[in-house]
Every structure is written in C-alpha cells, then in structure tokens.
C-alpha cells in the first residue's frame, strides 16, 4: 500500500523576534518569533536540505520515481527549480523532476502527484510581506520533504477531498515580493463553507467519525478563517495541534506538511490524523499511521521540536530586511561576484550541485574532482565520491571582513572530511567568534549569491548541530 515512507523537515537557523519589528517601526510585529531563511537560502536550497534529510531517513534501498517541488517563491521561472534540487540530491536522470509553483495549492498538487507515483514531494517557502505588515510578521520559512512508496509506509491515506472555488482573498503579481490581502472577514465567509464540505466528504470516504481523529492539523494563511474551523466543523478543539505560528510563523505552501512532520515525530502507530488546508477553497486529507512508524522514528533525522529550540533568535530586523531585499545597503568597495557561467557549471554539475569529488586508487580524495592523481600522477583512474553527507573538521579558518557578502563578514575555513578530502569553503549559520580549529562541521546547500539573475548554488559548511 502506498503511503509516506519517510519525511524530512528543514528549519533555517535564524529567528526574528516579532518585537524587533515593533522596535524599529513602532508598529507591526507582535508576540513570538518567525523563522527566517538566511541571506544565502531560498526555496530551492531549503528544499535540498529537507530532501537530503528525508532521503537519508528513507534509506539506500528507497528509489524515488519522481521529484515534485512546490513553492510560492520560486528562484526561477521558465527554468526549472526542481532540476536544481534533483541534481543536489544526486537523483538519477531517469527520475522525473517537476515544479508546482505559484499558489499555496501547488503543494497539495505536488503531494497528490508524488503519492500517486511513488515520488518525493518537497514543499518549500520563503514568506515575505511589506515592512510592518501582518504578512511579514506572521510568515515563516521552512521546507518539508515527503517520500512516498509501497514498502513499509509509516502513514497511509484514508481519505482526501478537495473543495475548490474562485475568490480573490489574497494575491501577488509576478515580480512583486509581497502579497495583498482582502479584509479577512471575507476570507472566512468565502472559505468556511468549503472547509465544511471537504471535512464531511473526506470523513465519509474514510468511514471515520469526527471523534475518531487523534490529531487535527488546520492551516491557511487567513488566521481568522483557520481559527473558525473547529467550531464550524464540529471538531474537538483539544485535538487540534499547535500550529507553530508563535515559534516559526506560517510557512505558506510548506506549512501543513511541516505540522504533519511535527505530528509524525511523536505519533504512535494506528493514530488518525486530519490535515485541513484552507487555500482557494479547502483540501482535507486523512492519514493513519502504521506499525512501521515506531521503527522509523528510531532512524528519523527530523526532530522538529529540537530544531525549533536550536534556532538563533537574535536576528536584527535590519538584517532581515536586507536579506529579503527590502533594504538596499552600501556594499563593501569590492566588485560583485561574477555570474557563474552555464557551460562550466554544466560540465561540473555533479560537483557543483552534488558535491561529488574523485578518489584515486590510493584513496586520496580530490575536491574538486581531478583527472590527475595528486599522489601517483595517474590520469583518469578515479572513482566518484559524494561528500555531501560526510562530516568534517576545521583545519584553519578566517573571518574575511573585506569580501563581498549580503551578510558580512564572510567566514571561510579549510575543512578536512572524515575519511579523507580537504576543501576550502565558506561557513554559514555560524557565530564568527565561536569558530575554532578542530570544530566539527557538516555540509549544507546554499545560494551563494545572485549575479545577472543567475543564482550561484553551491555548498557551504555549518557547525554540526549535534555538537
């Protein structure tokens, strides 16, 4: 039976205290925190991070048949973003890659497609709003990957129903970096009847009663409508899960999947979970966990509550605005980085996206991959070796206060991988004062910079979370 066989959630390192907004603008903000994609992250890079965690948990035997990437904030149009994620995950060229882009509903479609084709769906969003808006403070950034397959699913679908309607309660013109919204009472009026229709129909399909539900996930970008759902649908409010808006914010297209990951982190076998998504209508999906969940939880690499607690919560609002492009600040008196050229990026795509180096017959690892062995001088006697999931230690480092960066200073290090291989790269999600020789790091996929509209995706290292 097809179902979710593995999942991975990625929360960025940074949190913005909503009071930081109020502190600077004198209004807006509110209580709690929102998650913030760093200056070197976007929906594509975060999708890679979530996908890596999910695929590692799925295990080496798992073979994704397709990759479905969904976001409302794509890095590119025309050009696929799913192929970037595909390359960084090291998937075979025969595995399809598809973008589902634009509306919050895109993520629903991506999951529907992935579940029908034993694929991986990755939902990723970076939420922005005009400075001082509720959209800005209530938003959050995250990515979630759901792997579907037939072997030992941990949760299976018991029912799903869509109630779709056309009404304009929020909208964003392509090219704009914030949404506009109608007054929220309208959204509640237009949306609630559709939720009621979908809840009733999904329950009917599954043969469940409302009282059978152990956990209820309700998400949508209209907080007022979301809040009204339990009463309108006669659902037990005590079964409705914390929607993480206080600690993470609403992560848009990714949010329902993020809450599902949170529920699966702690669920027990045989639990019944309802997912209610309000977006241009409503979708209700009903999931039942299986006996395989217990074993999965032991090897799962996602622990959302720990990730929430581990975030760094002292981001200043000026940096947040700068990172999202709302504040144009004076750069260092240095040239902007050159755009990566397409032909060399294509030639080295396994390295650039997959971090695949080469290992010679003596075991010496060459990063980047080389044709000539450093030790023996032999030519083309190499085998590929993927370094993305291998931990490393800092051999030496520096804090570069002169280099161009959206978030100076640049912290750079020479790192030595466990088992061989040395590489010079930038460190990210790091406190410059805390870097030391011997420190443990792991690799993370990032958007280094954007020049001439070309995003330079590559790998950096970050301090190991478990340290």
């Amino acid at each position, binding site marked *: 039976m097809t179902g979710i066989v593995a999942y991975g959630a990625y929360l960025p390192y940074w949190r913005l205290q909503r009071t930081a907004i109020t502190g600077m603008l004198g209004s807006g903000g509110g209580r709690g925190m929102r998650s913030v994609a760093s200056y070197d992250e976007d929906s594509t890079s975060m999708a890679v991070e979530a996908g890596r965690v999910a695929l590692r948990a799925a295990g080496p035997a798992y073979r994704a048949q397709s990759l479905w990437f969904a976001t409302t904030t794509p890095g590119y149009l025309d050009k696929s973003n799913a192929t970037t994620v595909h390359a960084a995950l090291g998937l075979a060229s025969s595995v399809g890659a598809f973008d589902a882009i634009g509306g919050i509903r895109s993520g629903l479609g991506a999951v529907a497609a992935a579940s029908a084709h034993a694929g991986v769906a990755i939902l990723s969003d970076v939420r922005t709003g005009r400075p001082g808006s509720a959209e800005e403070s209530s938003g959050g950034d995250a990515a979630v990957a759901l792997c579907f397959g037939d072997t030992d699913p941990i949760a299976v679908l018991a029912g799903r129903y869509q109630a779709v309607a056309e009404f304009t309660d929020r909208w964003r013109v392509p090219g704009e970096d914030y949404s506009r919204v109608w007054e929220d009472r309208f959204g509640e009026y237009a949306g609630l009847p559709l939720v009621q229709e979908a809840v009733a129909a999904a329950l009917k399909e599954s043969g469940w009663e409302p009282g059978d539900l152990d956990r209820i996930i309700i998400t949508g970008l209209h907080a007022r409508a979301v809040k009204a759902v339990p009463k309108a649908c006669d659902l037990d409010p005590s079964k409705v899960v914390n929607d993480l808006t206080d600690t993470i914010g609403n992560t848009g297209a990714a949010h329902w999947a993020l809450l599902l990951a949170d529920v699966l982190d702690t669920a027990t076998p045989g639990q019944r979970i309802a997912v209610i998504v309000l977006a241009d209508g409503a979708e209700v999906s009903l999931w039942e966990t299986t006996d395989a969940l217990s074993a999965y939880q032991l090897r799962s690499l996602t622990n959302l509550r720990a990730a929430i607690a581990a975030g760094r919560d002292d981001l200043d609002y000026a940096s947040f605005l700068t990172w999202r492009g709302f504040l144009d600040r004076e750069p260092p008196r240095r040239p902007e980085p050159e755009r990566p050229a397409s032909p060399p990026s294509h030639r080295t795509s396994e390295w650039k996206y997959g971090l695949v180096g080469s290992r010679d017959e003596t075991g010496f690892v060459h990063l980047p991959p080389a044709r000539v062995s*450093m030790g023996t001088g032999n030519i083309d006697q190499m085998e590929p070796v993927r370094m993305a999931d291998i931990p490393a230690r800092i051999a*030496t480092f520096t804090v570069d206060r*002169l*280099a161009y960066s959206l978030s100076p200073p*640049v912290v750079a290090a020479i790192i030595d991988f466990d088992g061989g291989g040395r590489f010079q790269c930038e460190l990210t999600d790091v406190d410059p004062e805390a870097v030391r020789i011997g420190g443990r790091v792991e690799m993370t996929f990032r958007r280094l910079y954007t020049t001439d509209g070309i995003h330079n995706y590559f790998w950096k290292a970050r301090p190991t979370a478990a340290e």
Partner: protein
Amino acid sequence: MASHGIRDKVAIVGMGCTQFGEHWDRSTDDLLIDASAEALGSAGVSLGDVDAFWLGTMGSGLSGLTLSRPLKIDHKPVTHVENYCATGSEAFRNACYAVASGAYDVVMAIGVEKLKDSGFSGLVVPSPANDGTSSNVTAPASFSFLAPAYAEKYGVDTQEMKDVMTRIAWKNHRNGALNPRAQFRKEVSKETIACSPLVAGPLGIFDCSGVSDGSAAAIIVRAEDAYKYTDRPIFVKALSFVAGPAAGPIDPSYDYTSFTEVVHSARDAYAQAGITNPRAELAMAEVHDCFTPTELVLMEDLGFAERGFGWKEVLAGTFDLDGELPVNPDGGLKSFGHPIGASGLRMLFECWLQLREEAGERQIASVAAGKTKALTHNLGGSPGACVSFVSVVGSELD
C-alpha cells in the same frame, strides 16, 4: 631536477623605479616611461640600444603593445609575462635567460601595475568564466589562514602572535620612512598597528601591503660586458622559479605554516649560488611581505630562522635594519607598496642600491662589513597554492 642556473653569466647595469603610491595624476604609460627612462639613464644607454623587452603586468594591459606603444619602440621583440604577484620577477628571469642564451646583448625587464584606478579596496584578480564553486575569499583572508595555524602548531598565544605580526609591520614602516620612493613614508606606532581595524582574521589594515601604482625596470647585459656600462654592476647568482601542484587546499597533510613552493625555490637558488648558510652569507633580503604572517613564515621557509622559532627572531629584532640579517630594508610591500607587476623588480632595485652603497640613510652596515650578496623573494597565489621566485644577486664575480 636539473637546474644549472646562470651564475655570473648576466649582470644588471642600470635600474629605475618610480615612487610607488596613489598616482591619480599618472597613467600606466607615464609609469612605464618614467621607470624605463631612469633605467636607461642609469645604464647610460638609449632605447635604441635595447634589443628586446620583457614586460610584467597582471592587469594593467595585454601584449607587448602595452610597452611598445607608449615608448615608441621601433619593431623590437616585447614579451608580456604574467605570474600573479611574482610577475615582475618573472619578467626579469626570462630577460636574463635571453641574454645568457646569447640571443641578445642588451635587454630590459620592466614591471608595472596601476591598481588605484579600479576604485575597489584591495586587489581584484579577474578570472576566466567558471562554475562559481571556488571560494571567493580575498587575498588578506587567504593569507590570514597562516596566523591561527602557525600559532596553534608552535604554541604561540593569540596576543604573542599579534605582537609578532605588529612588529613586522612596525619594522617595515620604520624602514619605509627612510625611503623617498615608498608609498608610506611614516613610522607607525605599534599601538596604532595593533589597534587598526580588522580586515581578515587577526589581520588589521596595517598587516596588509599597500595597494599602489608603480613601475620598476632593469637593464641586463652579459656579465663580461657589464663593466662597459658601470663600474658597479650587480651579477645574477641564482634564479629559481617554481609553481606548486596547488596541493594545500586539497591535501589534509598541508598545515598552513609553510609555503612548500618557497622551500623548493630557495633550495634551488641556494644551490645555484653556492650558499650554504643564507642567514650568515647574505647581506640582506627583500621578501614578499604581502601580509605580516607571510613574512613570518618566509623567515623559516627561506632558512633565516629555525622552524617554529621565526616568531622569536622577529621579536628579537634579527631582521631589523640594524639586525643580523636586514629584511625588507626598503620598507617591503608593506610600506613601499605593492603594484603587482612592479614588485619583483622593486625588490631588485633595493639590492642594486644597497650592494652599491647608494641607499642613503637606510644603508645597511653588512655591505661595508664585506657581505656582497642579496636575496629577493617574490610569490604569487595563496598559501598552499602559489608560485615562488627566489633570486640571489651579488656585487662581485665569484
């Protein structure tokens, strides 16, 4: 490796060097005209007497036309060479070989760089179209890798390391203050150096060489002809240039406390020159102090100090102007400035002045005491992946 050298086969018979600095009023052409004219005048020859030219510049022009156009060179061979920050030395080396081969009688090596017109801070190195995966750290950052690695390996604490770096900058500024052609002609207090704004790692602004414009040139002839031009020629004793396999950034056994390329080129140069104890035999050395930790590590790589003891020798004043082995008596890259293509020839210019006892108030005592050989060291690239040049020149034929 066969490296037979060209000891005592060629000689420098004239040199020129512009003042280094922010020459808002002078172009690359102006700098080339001024340095070449001074060199020609110094050798007592005219432009028409020069058979061939080697021009070193990294980014101030392409092809031999960069020199032939402003100088109006009349249908002569002009070769443009580039080898990162060792470009000037590379122009000199190839010019020497051309004379030694017998192909030409009189040649000019000239280096130039016009850095201040870019409008950027620090050095900007253009790169070919690429995949965007190489680390974009700046030059001071890549050399700052040396400091924590050296300190860790030899148990030097953070403050001591900073003191060592500060003393190197203080010494070179002190020397440069005595040099009318230097970019920075002012002594700087150790407090000012130590408290200067950080650029990369522990490196403050005063730990970095000056970004400047400048040009320097040499006229080279066969050794047997040298005394026709001057009664005090400077003979070339050794020229060594190596490019490493760039192993440092990929080989975990490299520890960022040495430049293996420098060790190799120094060994080769000493063999060519017949030097067995460089610290005792050399009158002085001009070394590539692009950043203060570089000079520290070079003291060990060039054999001036034992491994792990260079920092103590620096603090003891061994390499001061009046020390046992004066290093960078002209102020070095630190205060003379570092117009890339000119620096290697600028180093030779100081050897030319000192060995001929024409260095004025910064004249070192070791020459009068009978030492006749001087060393220049010039490198390009970054720790673990660089090119290194070492020359030995002397005022006497062996």
